[in-house]
């Protein structure tokens, strides 16, 4: 798919509309992912023996908070790669007159007996007919029920839960505000070894990370006044947050979630430390520009650098880490690479 579609790239964006005109049989009708998120869908490309699917996320301009939204999705992906979290390989596209992000089928490397379950299907099966907003503990309970009902090993359950906890920690570093419990997907079914399995699928719902929850005007204002930026970032909530009885306030702030995850869990603390040391926003920006062969707007780059640094500083305070030492090590590495 990549080779053919790459010819349709113009100023960073792959033009899917033009691709469709020249390949009328290229797409079959779109498959919507689920009722929650009508804007995202899988679509089928080609009619060969082995069909390929791509995940298309059209972004209507009204729906976007700002024009940087698509870049934040790609930057997020790069940051996750740096700490070993699997993410869908996104690319920029234009579809139906709107900007979009696309990815190839994430199941391609898996066995044909494996399929994707959205977390909402697990959650709604356990909490049927309730309209409460789910938190991560509800999700862990649903996974436990799933594993019990299907006689899956405790190790599988533990690995799933650990992976979700790691994603939540990395999310906090990447300033994600809209990670809901339903934003996780799982790959279930019989794996290549012929055993029943359940694992966390590469992430694909990364909207509203790296400041894309703010409007363009807000971002420009914040660049002029760093105090406002610091205040607004510290107020950011985290949707998939901790259960109410663990919170200090009404809203699930990111600090509450971080404390909840690292409290009494040394592995999570070690992972948070790894994130602080290994996540490098400058490298992420370089890689995105290289991948899309385009330039990210300067004001957004500046904002992302400042915001990421600000969040890192706050997290270091929470984790009792030496922020200046971490930054020194990072720049030392960068300088060595340049030499």
């Amino acid at each position, binding site marked *: 798919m990549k080779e053919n579609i790459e010819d349709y790239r113009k100023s960073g964006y792959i033009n899917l509309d033009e691709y469709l005109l020249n390949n009328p049989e290229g797409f079959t*009708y779109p*498959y*919507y*992912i*689920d*009722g929650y998120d*009508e804007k995202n869908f*899988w679509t*089928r490309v080609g009619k060969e023996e082995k*069909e390929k*699917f791509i995940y298309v996320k059209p972004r209507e301009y009204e729906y976007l908070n700002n024009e940087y939204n698509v870049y934040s999705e790609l930057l997020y992906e790069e940051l996750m790669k740096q700490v070993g979290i699997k993410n869908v390989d996104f690319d920029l596209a234009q579809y139906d007159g709107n900007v979009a992000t696309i990815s190839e*089928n994430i*199941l391609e490397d898996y066995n044909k*007996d*494996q*399929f*994707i*379950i959205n977390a*909402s*299907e*697990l959650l*709604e*099966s*356990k909490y*049927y*007919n309730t309209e409460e907003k789910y938190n991560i503990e509800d999700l862990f309970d649903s996974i436990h*029920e*799933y594993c019990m*009902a*299907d006689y899956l090993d405790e190790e599988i359950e533990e690995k799933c839960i650990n992976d979700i906890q790691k994603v939540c920690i990395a999310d906090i570093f990447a300033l994600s505000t809209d990670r809901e419990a339903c934003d996780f997907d799982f790959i*279930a*079914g*019989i794996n290549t070894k012929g055993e*029943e399995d359940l694992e966390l699928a590469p992430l694909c719902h990364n909207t509203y990370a790296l400041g894309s929850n703010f409007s363009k005007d807000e971002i420009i204002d914040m660049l002029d006044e760093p105090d406002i930026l610091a205040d607004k970032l510290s107020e950011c909530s985290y949707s998939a947050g901790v259960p109410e009885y663990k919170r200090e306030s009404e809203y699930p702030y990111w600090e509450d979630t971080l404390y909840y995850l690292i409290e009494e869990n040394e592995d999570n603390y070690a992972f948070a430390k790894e994130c602080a040391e290994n996540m490098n926003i400058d490298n992420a920006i370089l890689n995105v520009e290289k991948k899309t062969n385009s330039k990210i707007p300067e004001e957004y780059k500046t904002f992302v650098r400042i915001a990421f640094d600000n969040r890192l500083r706050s997290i270091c305070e929470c984790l009792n880490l030496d922020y200046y030492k971490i930054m020194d090590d990072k720049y030392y590495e960068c300088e060595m690479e340049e030499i």
Partner: protein
Amino acid sequence: MVIDVLWDNIKIIRIDKVNGMYISTAYHENLDAVRHSGFPLFFLKQINLVSDELPIIVKKRISNIYNIRGKLKFKDDIEEKELENYIAKYINETGCQRPTDKFKIHIEL
């Protein structure tokens, strides 16, 4: 109205609509076969024997049809019966299947 839920083209659940209630039955003789092709038994837990709502597996997949229905251009004076037939035909042709899905829905009006 009868709705069948299939996994890998094997019937697993039958749902009958009687007086506005949905009555679900499992094709127990097929459960062993679907289990071997990776059907998660967990999904059976969510299905109520009698309910005024469709099981979540069916509801979520059929709701996709209504998303598409909004995009289809129907005449204003189309009869409800005709629309129902059209949607049923659509459900049976596509199976309401997602690309990574092994579930299929079949409907008989």
